[in-house]
Structures are given as C-alpha cells and as structure tokens.
C-alpha cells in the first residue's frame, strides 16, 4: 500500500472540497535552531494514510503523526512530590466524505493498522453523510509541500537534568519558607515537546516542533491559630520558549515578594464592595481578555457549534455584529496572532496547513473579524471579503480531531509609551489587581467574575495599602467600553495557559494573550469572604 502513492501523485492530489492555491514552498526556520524536517518513515505513514482515506472515498483528508513528550518536576517545601516523564505517539486521520467528517486514531503505527484507521475515518464520515442535510466545504489553502517550523528557543528544557530543575525549585521554596508566616510552598516546572507531521490531501506536508515550558510557585501563609489561610500564586507565565526563560525568571529572588504578599494577605483590609476603578496588571488582564474577547470571537461559537457545552457567544449572528458592534473605545485594538514571540499558540501553520498570520479582530473599538478555520470562514466571507482561513484549527494530540481553537489574542498597547505609574496616576480611588485568581464567565460570554492574587488600594494616583477578598463582576460589552487608559509598549506582557478546555470530547489548547496594563472605570467589586 505504501508504494501506491508516490511523491508526485501526492503533490498532485487536490481535495475535492477545496482548491489549492499557489505553493509556498519551504519556509525558512524561524528560531535560532534549524527546524527539523520529517522523519522518512513518518512521512511514508502519512502518505499511506492519505492514500487509504482517498481510496475509501474521502474527498479530502488530513493526517497527523504526533509525538508529545511531557516532563514534570513538582515539589512542596523541602521535598519532591513528583518526577515524571511521558510520551504519547500515534496517528489521527480526518476524512471528509460527501460533506461529512469522520475521524479515527490509533497508537499502532504498523501499516495494516494505519490503513485500517484511515478507512475507518472514511467509513464513519460516509455513515454520517447519510444523515447530514448540510454539506461541509473547505476554504482554499496555500499548499506547503515541505513546511518546517520550530519554537524559537536557546536551551531545550529536556536537556536540563531533573536534579537541576529540582534544585532550582528547592532553592525557591527555601527562600519562601524563610519569610515569617509562610507555612507551605508548592512549586513545579512542566516541559512539553510536541512534534507533529501534518499531511493533507491538498498536497501539504508540514513538520513542526513546539517547545513549551510552565513554571509554577504557590505560597501559603496560615494564621498562628489556624483560623485563616491565604495563598499567593506567582502567576508565572507559561511560554513557548526554552529553559533560558525559567533562568530569567530568577524565582529564588522573586519568591520573597510573593511570600511576603501571602503573609500580608492574612492581615490585609477586606475590601469594601461597591463601584471602583480598577487597574489590571497584564498578569491578571490576560485571563479577562481570554474569557471575554478570546472566546467570544470564536466563529464556531457564533455559528452554534459549541452550544451543548462551551456555549455560543453574544457576538452573533455575525451579520448583525461584524463591522458594527462597538466592543470598546476607539483606542482598543485586538489582534489574533499566530506569530506572537513566546506565544503558546504561536506556530508555522495550523492543523489544516494554513500559514501563521496576524489579523485584526477588534479595530478602533469595532468588531471586524473572528477566529476562523477552513470549514467555517466561508460563512462570513461575504462580509469580511476574506476567503481564506486565519489558521485556527488545532487538535490536542494524535487522538484528537482538529477543530477551531484560539490563537494568541492580544490587546495592543497605547501608541504613547505610557508607564504603569502613568496609568495608576490617573486614578483617584481604585484597586490595582495583579495575578489571576478565581474566574468564571457565562456561556455567551456576558457575565464574568474574576478574582486575582494581590490587590492594592489606589488613592490619589498611588498604591497605598493591600486589600483582600476582592473579585469584580461585570458584563463584557459595558466592561470593555469602560476601558479608560492603557499603558504603552513598555507595559506589554504575555499571560498564558497550557490548558484551555473546549469541545466535546474536551481538548486542551495552549494559548497566550499579550496586553498592556489597563484602567477600567466604575467596575462592580464584590467581597468574597
């Protein structure tokens, strides 16, 4: 079977569901290290699966061979709690037959198994096509016959010995435990290497290697009589980067501040609920952006595809809101960006072979576009005049079907390079919030409520004392239209998560959000005590 489809035939194959545009060819490596190309045997497997899916009736198919390596080291106080490594490796085949999808995946990469799996995907698609009234079509994509990309990084975290990672965490814990009142510290570092080879029946063949790293420190202070405890999570940012990023965080030195703040929270003033101005640090604001802008501008939600779990969005139907809905003030600009340096959703191509790009979602305060895939972009093309996908398809691993997932979605900084002090200076009575805490938002992304890690009262343009038990509750359109001032490029930071859940079966996506520090007026603050 493997020999039935040669290189030339493969490149010639065109999905009936979507035409192929002029080729992009080999992409230059984006990082300091050259991006590796595909392993020959994996390439053969991908071609074999594509051939089998096509032979079984697929009008279009895409195949992913994915190997994900995880490594984690976790500690509490002066001891290890976990050291682990895992590897998962397999193949997933997605087939489109008469406008219906089918998906099958297996860990068994033997030829017979790969062929059987590809046929099963086509068989499931054929079965579903019989009961589907609407036929899926795909937007065209540029063919990339030899794509290569790797996360820019200097030090592969998998080359750093476990002992070295543990010693860094112990040193961090020890420093925190030296702060009077601190009783517990948990710390960890997780590293991910995700190597995926994508082949599509459009003729694309793309090898990508993603390196991501997530350090974490959480300090707990307990009152002397055990009547109260408070935690301060460092809100360290997961990053598409190497070990050099963790070194740069200098956790053993910086943990002192987090530890002191955990202790301070025990005796801090409990917030007076009511209407406050809030100044949101990027370590906090990223999550508010993620929940209220990131998820509300997913096109699949607007079209009803996620109605049963994650929900729909208030930004629907697209025809009513695109280029009309006023999301925020005129200085508010939000971009989808697959090229964000250090971003967890940064890539060379998405899981449908669409090249990484940056595009405006909110421009001068107005909603102008959504996050799109090849399947869905056609539903808004008449309005946006954009006929190609922005490249937002992603499957968590080989066993997961690709579907619309969030790219890095970032709030652009002020064109004037205002500092944090400039922004705080514009507040008479307010609360400064740092770090993400409790978070919850409704299924159409209207009503949200967010806590944080450290809260400071602002009086007359200065931070004056610590507060505790703070959360704010707002409605997305009013909240973003209360945005009064944003910091400049110098305050711009990324926030991120490795585990944004969506879909059924639920899949995780790693994603970042960049933003400057920002001031919002007249926000409803509650007391959580």
């Amino acid at each position, binding site marked *: 079977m493997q020999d039935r489809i040669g290189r030339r035939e493969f490149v010639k194959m065109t999905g009936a569901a979507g035409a192929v545009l002029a080729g992009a060819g080999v992409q230059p490596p984006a990082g300091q290290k050259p991006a590796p190309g595909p392993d020959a045997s994996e390439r053969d497997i991908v071609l074999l699966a594509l051939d089998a899916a096509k032979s079984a009736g697929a009008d279009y198919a895409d195949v992913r061979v994915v190997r994900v390596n995880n490594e984690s080291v976790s500690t509490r106080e002066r001891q*290890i709690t976990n050291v*682990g490594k895992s*590897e998962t490796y397999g193949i997933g085949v997605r087939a489109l037959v008469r406008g219906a999808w089918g998906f099958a995946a297996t860990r068994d990469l033997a030829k017979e198994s790969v062929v059987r799996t590809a046929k099963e995907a086509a068989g499931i698609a054929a079965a579903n096509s019989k009961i589907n009234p609407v036929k899926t079509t795909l937007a065209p994509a540029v063919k990339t016959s030899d794509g290569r990309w790797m996360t820019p990084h200097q030090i592969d975290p998998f080359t750093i010995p476990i*002992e070295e990672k543990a010693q860094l965490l112990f040193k961090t814990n020890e420093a925190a435990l030296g702060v009077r009142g601190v009783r517990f510290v948990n710390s960890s570092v997780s590293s991910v290497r995700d190597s995926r080879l994508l082949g599509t029946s459009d003729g694309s063949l793309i090898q990508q290697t993603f390196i991501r790293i997530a350090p974490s420190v959480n300090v707990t202070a307990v009152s002397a009589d055990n009547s109260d405890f408070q935690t301060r999570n460092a809100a360290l940012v997961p990053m598409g980067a190497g070990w050099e990023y963790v070194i740069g965080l200098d956790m053993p030195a910086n943990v002192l501040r987090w530890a002191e703040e955990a202790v301070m929270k025990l005796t801090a003033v409990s917030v007076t609920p009511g209407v406050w101005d809030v100044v949101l640090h990027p370590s906090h604001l990223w999550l508010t952006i993620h929940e209220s802008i990131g998820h509300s501008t997913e096109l699949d939600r607007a079209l*009803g*595809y996620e109605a049963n779990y994650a929900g*729909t969005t208030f930004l629907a139907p697209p025809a009513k809101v695109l280029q009309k809905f006023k999301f925020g003030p005129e200085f508010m600009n939000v971009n989808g960006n697959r090229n964000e340096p250090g971003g967890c959703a940064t890539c060379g191509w998405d899981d449908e072979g669409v090249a990484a790009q940056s595009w405006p979602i909110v421009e001068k305060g107005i909603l102008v576009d959504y996050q799109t895939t090849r399947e869905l972009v056609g539903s808004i093309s008449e309005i946006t005049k954009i006929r190609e996908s922005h490249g937002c398809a992603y499957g968590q691993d080989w066993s997961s079907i690709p579907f619309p997932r969030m790219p890095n979605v970032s709030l652009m900084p002020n064109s004037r390079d205002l500092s944090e002090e400039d922004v705080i200076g514009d507040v008479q009575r307010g609360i400064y919030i740092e770090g993400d805490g409790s978070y919850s938002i409704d*299924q159409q992304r209207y009503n949200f409520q967010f806590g944080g890690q450290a809260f400071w009262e602002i009086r007359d343009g200065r931070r004056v004392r610590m507060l505790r038990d703070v959360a704010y509750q707002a409605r997305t359109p009013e909240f973003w239209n209360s945005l009064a001032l944003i910091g400049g490029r110098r305050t711009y930071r990324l926030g991120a998560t490795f585990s944004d859940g969506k879909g059924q*079966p639920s899949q995780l996506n790693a994603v970042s959000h960049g933003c400057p520090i920002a001031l919002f007026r007249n926000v409803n603050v509650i007391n*959580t005590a």
Partner: protein
Amino acid sequence: MQNTTTRHGLTAPEARELCDRVLRFAKADHTRVNIESGIRGFTRTAVNRVTTAGVADSLSVTVTSVFGKRVASVSTNRLDDAALQRAVRDAEELAKISPENPEYLPELGEQQYVAVDGYYASTGELTTETRARAARLGIQAAEAIKASASGFIDVQAGSTAVATSNKLFAYYSRTGVASTLTVRTPDGLSSGWAGDEGSDWNTIESSRIAEDAVRKCQQWRGKTLLEPGKYEAVLEPAAVGMLLENMMGAFDARAADEGRSFFSKPGGGNRLGEKLFDEKVSILSDPAEKNAETSPFTGAGLPVRREVWVEKGVLKTLSYSRFWAERQATSARPPAGNFIMSGGNATLEDMIKETKRGVLITRFFYIRSLNPRILSFTGLTRDGTFLIENGRIQRPVNNFRFNQSLAALLSSIEMMGRPGRVANEAGSVGRPIVVPALKVREFNLASISDAV
C-alpha cells in the same frame, strides 16, 4: 462480568503478561506498572447535523521506579520490548538522580479488593450507527419545533491494571457513556438541556433526553427579568451534581490538619465528628454502586472501599494518604471514586408546591472556587431557570451568577428527591455522581446573566 463478544482494552491475562514483561526488565529496588487501555468513541451534533464523529484507541504503560526513597515515573504508549525497556531504563535513571521523597512508602504487596464489574457489553459494543441513531432522535425532536439541536454522545470502554515488584496485581475493566442534548430556538432566545450518564448504555434514555431538552426549551421561551437576590431554590438533580461534585476534593485529612481547608479546626486539627450540615445529609462513596461503578483500587494498588464521609450531617471520614495515615496513626483511605448522596421521596412537583417564592434551576455552568475556607463557589445557571410563586412555576426568568457556600447550602436543605446518576457539566464520561433533587431555604443568586 457481563456477556460480551468484543471487549475493549486489555484482558486481565494480557495485562498481567504485559506487567510481567515490564517487571522483568526492572532493576530498581521497587517497581510499579500501571496500564490504561481501551477506546473512546463519540458523536457530536450541532445545528441539527452531525458535526464530528470518531473513535480512538489508547494504551499507556507507566513505569514507576524506586531506589531507596528516590522515585520517578515514565509513561509510553509503545509496546515493543525495546520501547518498554527504554521506559524502564529512563524511569530508573530518572529516579536515581531525583532528590529523595521522605514521604515515600514501599510499594504494596498483594491486597484484597471488593469485587466490582463495571464493564457493560451494551456500552462496549455501541457502534457509530447506534450513536448516530440516538443523535438523530435529538435532531428530529428539535426539528419538530423548528429549533436547533446540539448534542454529544461519549463512549469509553477499557481496562486498568496495576502491578508491583512486591507481587501485587490488580485489574478492573469498565465502560461509561454520557449523552447530553441542548435545544435552542432559532432566534437564540431560549435554550433547554437534558442528559444522562451511566456505565450501562441501556440506562441512557435517548427519547426522554430529547423530550426533556425540547420541553425545557419551550418552557423557557419568553423569559423575563428577575432581580438578583437570595431565593428559596429547587435544584434539579443535574444542578445538584454539578455543584456538589466540587466539594469532593475538600475531604482531605492532610489539608484539614494543616489548616487549609473548610474541615480545619481553628486552633489545630480537623473537624471529624462535628455536625456541619443538615441531618438529612449523608454522603458516601462505593466502588460497587450499580451503574456508577469505579475501580476498587487506586493507581498505587490501595484498596478502595465503601466509605461514609458524612452521616446525618456529621463529618465521619476524611481521606488519608498512606503517609499521612501513618503519621496520624490511622489507616489509609483513598479519596472517593464516586459521590453518592442520600435522598428522600419528594418529587420536583412536591418541592415546587412547597415553595412560596423561589427559583427552579435546571443546571449550572463554569463553576469555580471562590473561597475555600467557606467552601464557596461561583458559577451560572443555564438552560432553564424559572420563578416559582405560591407553589407554582410562574414564569421563565433570566439566568444568574451565583456566589454560594456549599456548607451553607447543605445546612439549608428542606426536601430531597430520589437520588440518581447525573450527567456532568462537560457532558463527557466522568466521575460517577449520584444525587437527588434538592429544595433549599436559600440560594445566593448574586447577579444577572443575559446569556441564553
């Protein structure tokens, strides 16, 4: 064991053979092998059509190697000898260079387990076509009222096994299925939801799910404003399950003893033996609960038995790791595998009749911890919220965000229904939850959600 022709996941002899194969490669002081194997099939619908469907097999082997108190784990999904040898070698090398874990206790030897059969052929043999037919029922019911159906059927079948170099071997096979359906009006102004979850496909009532989701969607049409506030509340079983599932992690003795839990006693220690909830509240877990079975052993091979966590409102048990149990001179008790709550005989209609002014809640969404010291959580109502006045449902109302202490909730129970297994928020096969409908004196609906 239920009769089956095709069982997914490794059989017990296959699992034992694989464990033995791995253990033969091992050179560490102690070695543990964990195996997970099986399949997951799913059918997903939205806007009245199947949007995706698929199946994936899986098999993972995790090797835990121990030298003294140095411990590390490596997992792989490759089964050839070379890959397994590499996994063992990697785990051993990793363990040797890992710092000591002073809390490590030697691997367990042979144990006695409760006999549990959680594998149902009805679920294991479910085909793509059967799932599609069940999904079709939801689509047809929605089409009949010119509405839109979105649903999910999740099927998992497989086995889990653990073996140690101290001659422990344990094996368990199980199935699980969840089916949920949301029906929305085309104008986007009303939405209804229903769902089931079980080990046995024969307990999933696809027609009733379709009828209930359609009925909710129709009843919730024309919702009007209700101000936020503290209301009496009637919580349907799914709402109770989604809420109370969140308190399971709190039953941890160590967190309580260390002063960082609702169950911590001011001044030190924990609140075992204290009456903390209404006396109608009993909470237990039982791996052998019919249609809500769970593994009778933990990943380390520790037996999981029936436990009563709360009895008549009194905290009776907390979970103890082996280390913490030894330290506190008691026996180890793993965390609950499932959540089973006591009930009563009241129907939803009885509860509504007894409500002067309150809110009927169908289910919740996006529940997150707010303040662990008082077990408070925030989240939102969804897919059918109604005002009850003078014993009758008066009108559909807007959704709310709630900020509510579960401890306070469990102290304000007035009526309870018959417990049953409920679907979870994600609509996927998850930890089995068996709970009743509840009528509570007070529920804090803190702000309005415009979401539908």
